[in-house]
């Protein structure tokens, strides 16, 4: 490749434009380790959340109902690591920024492919962080669907990361350990990035971590703000279920179908369960729910243990109006058809007259305004 024409060696293409000594591999490797860890945690927790919310048929029967806080933990961690990845991505990309203008732009076909791969990785990662952050605010300014796009971009970003790691492995290995001589300013820069990660984490993680609630200044939720002291993702007004029909009856369809009104339900044995309501958007809150065990209702209908059910809500439409619940949740003694929360009768926003609450399940599957429970097998 001939030397570049002088006319093109301007601005960022001019040698010596970037004079900070921190545009060097060791700083990049240190930041890359943190960012790589954050991306991998994000990917694995996102995948776990996806599988719990939308399980393929072969998996739905074996997803565990324990630990009770499993979904809360993985989705809280998903959003915490995603937010931490924002300053890490910025810092990491800044350290390698001069490489964008390296000359020649491609030394070989392999080098061109590697650079193309980096473009895919960076574009997917930036869009992933952007869409994820805005989803926590329920803000969707883009023309494509959030959930599917975010999921597939996660595969692109993580796959791109692995390819990038493979391509850069020798360089990473050379700079993995601390060198004898330090570059001036590196320690201060890494300390700044650490402080930035700390600041964004401490001011947002309180939406799910109880002991950080007092510092929850920038998160889109606070776990104690909402009707009856709990956040909701979909209000009764949004779902069109503010008023429940006067003739509401719970219908349970099984070998011996029956219906119950609210008074009948209240006369059945009541149980307490302290369970979190947890959202993929990264917020969660624990509450004491009181109601009838789902397993008891199924037993009354003559359904044997190991039965899966379909639960239908009163809401007219919505992607989670009908919810399938595999047998392991139905049989769990903590799974309730809840009538009360923290000692109060459920209000409309929390699913009056009755809602499902089960351990280790996404909030969207904790069906509110339950109208019908039917045995599916």
């Amino acid at each position, binding site marked *: 490749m001939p030397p570049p024409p002088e006319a093109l060696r301007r601005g960022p293409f001019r040698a010596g*434009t*970037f004079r*900070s000594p921190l545009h060097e591999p060791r700083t990049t490797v240190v930041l890359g380790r943190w960012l790589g860890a954050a991306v991998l945690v994000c990917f694995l927790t996102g995948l776990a959340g996806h599988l719990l919310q939308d399980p393929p048929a072969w998996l739905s029967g074996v997803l565990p109902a324990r630990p009770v806080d499993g979904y809360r933990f993985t989705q809280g961690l998903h959003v915490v690591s995603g937010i931490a990845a*924002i*300053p890490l991505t910025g*810092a990491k*990309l*800044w350290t390698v*920024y001069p490489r*964008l203008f390296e000359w020649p732009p491609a030394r070989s076909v392999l080098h061109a492919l590697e650079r193309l*791969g980096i*473009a*895919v990785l*960076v*574009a*997917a990662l930036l*869009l992933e962080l*952007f869409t994820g*952050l805005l989803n926590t605010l*329920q*803000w969707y300014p*883009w023309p*494509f669907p959030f959930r*599917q*796009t975010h999921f*597939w*971009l996660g*595969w692109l*970003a993580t*796959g*791109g990361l*692995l*390819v990038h*790691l*493979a*391509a850069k492995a020798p360089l990473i290995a050379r700079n993995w350990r601390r060198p004898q001589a330090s570059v001036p*300013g590196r320690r*201060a*820069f890494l300390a*700044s990035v650490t*402080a930035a990660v700390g*600041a*964004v984490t401490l*001011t*947002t993680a309180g939406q799910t971590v109880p002991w950080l609630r007092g510092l*929850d*200044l*920038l*998160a*889109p*939720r606070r776990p104690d*703000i*909402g*009707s009856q002291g709990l956040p*909701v*993702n*979909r*209000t009764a*007004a*949004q779902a069109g279920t503010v008023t429940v029909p006067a003739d509401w009856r719970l219908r349970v369809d099984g070998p011996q179908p029956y219906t119950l009104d609210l008074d009948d339900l209240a006369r059945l044995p009541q149980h307490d369960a302290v369970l979190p309501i947890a959202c993929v958007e990264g917020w969660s809150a624990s509450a004491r729910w009181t109601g009838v065990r789902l397993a008891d209702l199924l037993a009354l209908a003559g359904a044997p243990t190991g039965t899966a059910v379909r639960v239908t809500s009163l809401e007219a439409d919505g992607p989670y109006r009908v919810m399938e619940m595999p047998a392991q949740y139905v049989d769990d003694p903590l799974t309730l058809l809840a009538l009360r929360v923290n000692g109060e009768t459920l209000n409309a926003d929390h699913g009056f007259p009755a809602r499902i609450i089960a351990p280790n399940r996404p909030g969207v599957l904790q069906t509110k305004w339950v109208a019908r429970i039917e045995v599916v097998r």
Partner: protein
Amino acid sequence: MTARLRAAALVAGLAMTGYGLFGLLDDPYITAPVDILVWAVGGLVLHDGLWVPLLCLVGAYAARGPVLRGWLVVAAAVTAVGLPAVLRADDDHGNPSVLPLPYLRNWLLVLAATAVLALLLGLVRRRRNPPVSRPERREDPS
């Protein structure tokens, strides 16, 4: 061993990238994958073409000293995470538990609190290493 690990990462990474691409193109809910491409490339261009150069210029000409630079890194991160909430503070779609906090006030509060911490850090540094008079030195840009 290392070579094998490297090859495994490459193969797994390519497979995952391929799976992601296939999913984006095949998903029944994603009717216009070109929109995603436009947003992805747009984000890349805005980040690398506008945001980072701006950052480099500020770092080169306006931000002197490690403490001020450090605080600017923190302020940029807090702003990236908090600004969307500030912009959307009143838009909860009728759900009062979404965005329930005074985000503009909180954002300024976090900026001020971190600025005070940075100031204290700067004062401590100055007491430990009193500035010696030395010829004016241009800070390294970016």
